[in-house]
């Protein structure tokens, strides 16, 4: 029976090692824009995942180099705070229209995403550079007004 215990422990150790080492290799910190900027130089170079509200008028795309730049405004990440602001769609709207919110410039190289537009929620994975620009390797977008239930207004009639 001993050989099975030893074998089992070896398998277990291998799996624990795989998970631990891969976690270290693949970990990304979740930050809001405020949290990221609040950490100052410490945040530079750390793999991070940022959520922010896309400001439509800042979107620029250079098709020659496929370089996309835009700014995101700080938005709360906590669900309760989001609900206090009246749900995701309203929270995004407030983040974009409030000039007092912290903003972060984002650079992404790749095809222009189909969902990029004003008041979309952008979830970006990448690193903050010393120049204060966030270089995203991955860009996910959510447009809550389009998918989530929101009662139609009378103008729709």
């Amino acid at each position, binding site marked *: 029976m001993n050989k099975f215990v030893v074998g089992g422990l070896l398998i277990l150790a291998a799996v624990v090692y795989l998970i631990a080492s891969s976690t270290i290799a693949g970990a990304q910190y*979740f930050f809001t824009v405020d949290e990221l900027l609040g950490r100052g130089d410490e945040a530079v170079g750390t793999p991070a*995942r940022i959520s922010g509200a896309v400001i439509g008028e800042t979107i620029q795309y250079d098709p020659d180099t496929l370089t996309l730049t835009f700014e995101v405004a700080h938005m709360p990440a906590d669900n309760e705070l989001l609900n206090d602001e009246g749900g995701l769609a309203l929270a995004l709207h407030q983040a974009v229209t409030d000039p007092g919110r912290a903003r972060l410039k984002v650079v992404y190289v790749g095809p222009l995403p189909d969902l990029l537009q004003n008041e979309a929620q952008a*979830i970006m994975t990448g690193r903050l550079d010393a120049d204060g620009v966030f270089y995203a390797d991955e860009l996910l977008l959510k447009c809550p007004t389009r998918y989530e239930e929101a009662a*139609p207004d009378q103008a729709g009639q």
Partner: protein
Amino acid sequence: MLANFGYGALVISLAVSLYGIGAAIYGERNKQPRWVDSARNAMLLTFPLLTLAAASIIILLVTNRFELDYVYSVTSRSMPTYLRVTALWGGQPGSLVFWSWLLSLFTSAVTLRDWRRDREFLPWVIVVALVTLAFFLVLIIAFENPFLRYWTGSSGAVVTAMFQPRGLELFTPADGRGLNPLLRHPGMIIHPPLLYLGFVSLTIPFAFAIAALITGRTDDRWIRLTRRWTLWAWLFLSLGLILGGRWAYDVLGWGGYWGWDPVEVAALMPWLTATPFLHSVMIQEKRNMFKHWNMLLIIITYDLMILGTFLTRSGVLSSVHAFAQSAIGPMFFGYIVITLAVSLALLSRRWDELKSEGELTSWLSREALFLINNLVFIAILVVCLWGVFFPILTEALGIVGQAFPSVAHIFNGQKVTVGPLFYERATGPLWAALLLLMGIAPLSAWRASTGRTLGRGMVAPTIASVVALIAVAAFSEVRQWAALLAIWLCFFVVFVTLYEFIRAAAARAAAHSLNFIVALWQLAGRNRRRYGGYIIHLGVVLMAVGIIGIEMFQTETQASLKLGETLALGRYSIRYDSLAEFDTNDNRNVARAVVTVFKDGREVGELYPRRDYFYESDQPMTIPGVRASLEDDFYVLLVDWQPISTQNATFKVYHNPLVNWLWLGSLVFIAGTFVAAWPEKDAQPQPERSRAARAAARA
């Protein structure tokens, strides 16, 4: 009104389900079969009731009844009828109704079978099925009602409610918002129902397992009764996952098929326990071992299936910080915790009765190899659970940092997530281990294999696979050791499996002096489960070939081209010939480029990558131009273009070697499952066969 009618059908089916649960338990406890029969009738009654509810939704969807919140959210006037019908599962409330309808269909089918030999299971199977159904119906009625309507009054504000609020009138918007164009794809229309079919049918083996635990009839009868259900469930689940990948590949325009998105991981998790379950029940049937393990596996599979239903549809995982965003989140977690606790309590009560009758004797025996296979699957599951729940864990661990300042910099309460890199790194070696086991296990024997007997079987396949690997290395530029190892594993498994077929068929041909092909056919027919399983293994290897190709050898490039300019990638290049922009009569604006594809400098055809813009939903959709062959896919995206002024257009191109083996392998995989699940001829009950034999003798 139809909406009230459908809602009524839902409420009545909930009442009927609750009655059925009570009647089944009462009848069983008091030994009154009449009550159990009544419970069975209640079970059967839920199917027509839920059919009415689902049909009401479909009729409302098809007839543009935009005063319904659900119809407004998922359809619009410009959508064709078939898309309106499939919009039944286009949103959360409708998909939950569809889910319940499927559950009712399957459990009704099960209760209609012949129960004479298994009478004691019946009440408990009904109870488990109806508890599951009642849970979903409560969710639908209380939180996700598809029949909610819009009401408005003199103030102009619109209220969403089931019944007419005082002083308000029904409000009907002129048009609905329509289904997200990204979802208007055949793969996306079939993918959710297939996944649901898989999820729902997993309830059946779970119900029988619980019935076995409660009644104490803990032999392998419950496994034999549900073997085919489990196999079909597993096939549907696998197909749902594969089609989801195909949809992502065709529609999402990032040249990939699987991104380790938390939603994808959630759908994969039940598969990761159902697959080892399919394997380890064979050990129980053959050797009376692993009984606790099989019970545990099916219990976990059931709860992962419930978790998957919740996570895939509710959208809670797609947002960065959301776990309990929707009201139904706590309901789901509560239900999972309760069912898990009750199931485990039942299991612990029967723990001693479920003792193994056999014992593991050798690491090289087939049962030991199956056990390792199970453990590797569970390891992948643990990786997935870790990845999905890691963000919550890290946030919660802030408490540790506060209590022990010395580790505060590690446990600082900052939410940390793990991306695809984590999953790829952690599961890569585990998938490779599964491939290796797939190669060795068929050669092993029950009880004990010695290294020598096992080695003898492996000589021919090993030599063949090494030769094939050398050939690949000689004729390609593949040099990474991980890729070479993966390719060798694929060859090894293919050769072992073919060797098994040939060896057995040759033996049969010699013994019965048959033609080799006839012997092969008969062999597969006689032992469908075994040879069907081998065909599934072949399919999995082919899929692995495709995955290795795209994961390890994908290349990409991008450039902005003037008319007539070319862009090269490896042996391929494209020339930008023209671009046209036009409106279609289904409310799209299409920008369509024509590019000529060259391979090794020779013209091989044209591709038409395009970008559709949907006016109605104000959303563009990128559709790649793909040249597919067994060797590779050449995948061209139209990224951007300058209208009129200049004639530049930007393209992104991907070269995805071998990726079509992934889809081809899935066809082999389906074929293998059909072979394995097809009813065996000799499975007919004894008396009938003898009667037929007597009749034949008389004639």
